[in-house]
């Protein structure tokens, strides 16, 4: 503390002296003085604005720290921080630490209480998905990012809000998915047969034929769609996911439920390799063709009809 004061005092003296038109030409002196005036508050709190100690450099850090203390005890006492409209600015205002946060809309109505391991990122996501509901946010940093600690902080705030208003925040009501990012549920891979121990009454060719004709998009891949076991299959799954088309996948390596599929499919489609992508009953091709169509932007058309 002593060093800090001794360091800052000459600076403040300099700032102070510039208020006096000592050696300055008459025109520049008032200008300089004018710019200095806001800083003159630094005379009262010199360390904050003049000493760039890492610990104190961002006064937001201080604010967060003070928020932590009050927030974890009470929601009503946490400072309300306006959400900046620019996504980039959100990380300047909110910390990327873990904790509990409460989102308020423009009329200061509590919309949602959530927990996050990166508050700034979560606020940015909410702001992007439901900007009209994200006016300001109260946060409570939880230093221990343990799930139980986070949940406890969340419970504390929820209970406080419910006790005060008798209501659960709208966004926290069950069935409300406004705030929860639902990861798109990955479909299960299709199985062509009930299992290799069962005798088929129709041929595998017929099963393939019916599947590709009755389903708009089918991808025969190596491995499951959630864990493809070959780079080409992985790429195909990635492309289909990024295009966002609804498709079925069949794991040609699944010998339990798709026994003999690889050889039969190669003959059926007259195509020697996997993956194979069918659209409206027709083979589009493998990874190379799909990639090339994807790069040329031709896939949207392909999936339209």
């Amino acid at each position, binding site marked *: 503390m002593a060093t800090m004061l001794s360091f800052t005092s000459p600076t403040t003296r300099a700032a102070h002296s510039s208020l006096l038109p000592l050696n300055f030409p008459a025109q520049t002196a008032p200008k300089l003085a004018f710019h200095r005036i806001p800083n003159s508050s630094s005379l009262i709190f010199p360390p904050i604005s003049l000493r760039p100690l890492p610990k104190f450099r961002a006064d937001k850090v201080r604010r967060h720290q003070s928020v932590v203390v009050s927030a974890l005890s009470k929601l009503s006492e946490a400072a309300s921080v306006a959400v900046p409209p620019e996504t980039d600015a959100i990380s300047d205002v909110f910390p990327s630490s873990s904790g509990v946060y409460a989102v308020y809309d423009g009329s200061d109505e509590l919309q949602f209480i959530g927990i996050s391991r990166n508050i700034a990122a979560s606020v940015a996501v909410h702001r992007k998905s439901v900007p009209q509901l994200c006016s300001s946010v109260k946060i409570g940093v939880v230093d221990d990012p343990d799930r139980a600690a986070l949940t406890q902080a969340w419970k504390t705030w929820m209970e406080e809000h419910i006790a005060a208003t008798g209501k659960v925040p709208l966004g926290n009501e069950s069935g409300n998915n406004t705030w929860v990012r639902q990861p798109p549920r990955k479909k299960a891979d299709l199985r062509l047969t009930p299992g290799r121990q069962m005798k088929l009454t129709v041929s595998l060719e017929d099963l393939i034929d019916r599947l590709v004709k009755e389903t708009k998009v089918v991808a025969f891949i190596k491995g499951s769609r959630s864990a493809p076991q070959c780079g*080409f299959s992985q790429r195909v799954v990635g492309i289909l996911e990024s295009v966002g088309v609804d498709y079925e996948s069949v794991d040609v390596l699944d010998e339990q439920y798709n026994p003999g599929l690889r050889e039969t499919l190669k003959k059926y489609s*007259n*195509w*020697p*390799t996997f993956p194979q992508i069918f659209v409206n009953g027709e*083979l*589009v*091709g*493998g*990874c*190379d*063709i799909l990639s*090339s*169509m994807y790069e040329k932007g031709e896939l949207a058309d392909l999936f339209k009809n």
Partner: protein
Amino acid sequence: MGVSKEQVESSLTAKLSPSHLEVVDVSAGCGAKFTVEIVSEQFEGKRLLERHRMVNAALAEELKEIHALSITKAVTPSQWEQQQASEKTQAAA
């Protein structure tokens, strides 16, 4: 036993008489994975799927040994010229 780059090239040359052909063994010489870039007049008026089928058919024998064949380009000479030209202008830009 894998397939040599030369085998792939000679089969493709014999069956598709390409005006440009580039075969790369991407399996570090063990002959299991290849990428093929091929330009042929025989691709004229054919869809990409059919062109790939032609390449696959030309390599039917080799494919029994090859684990992965990636056809990066299967174009007609005129498409090839266009692509080369646009690549050049892009490089110049």
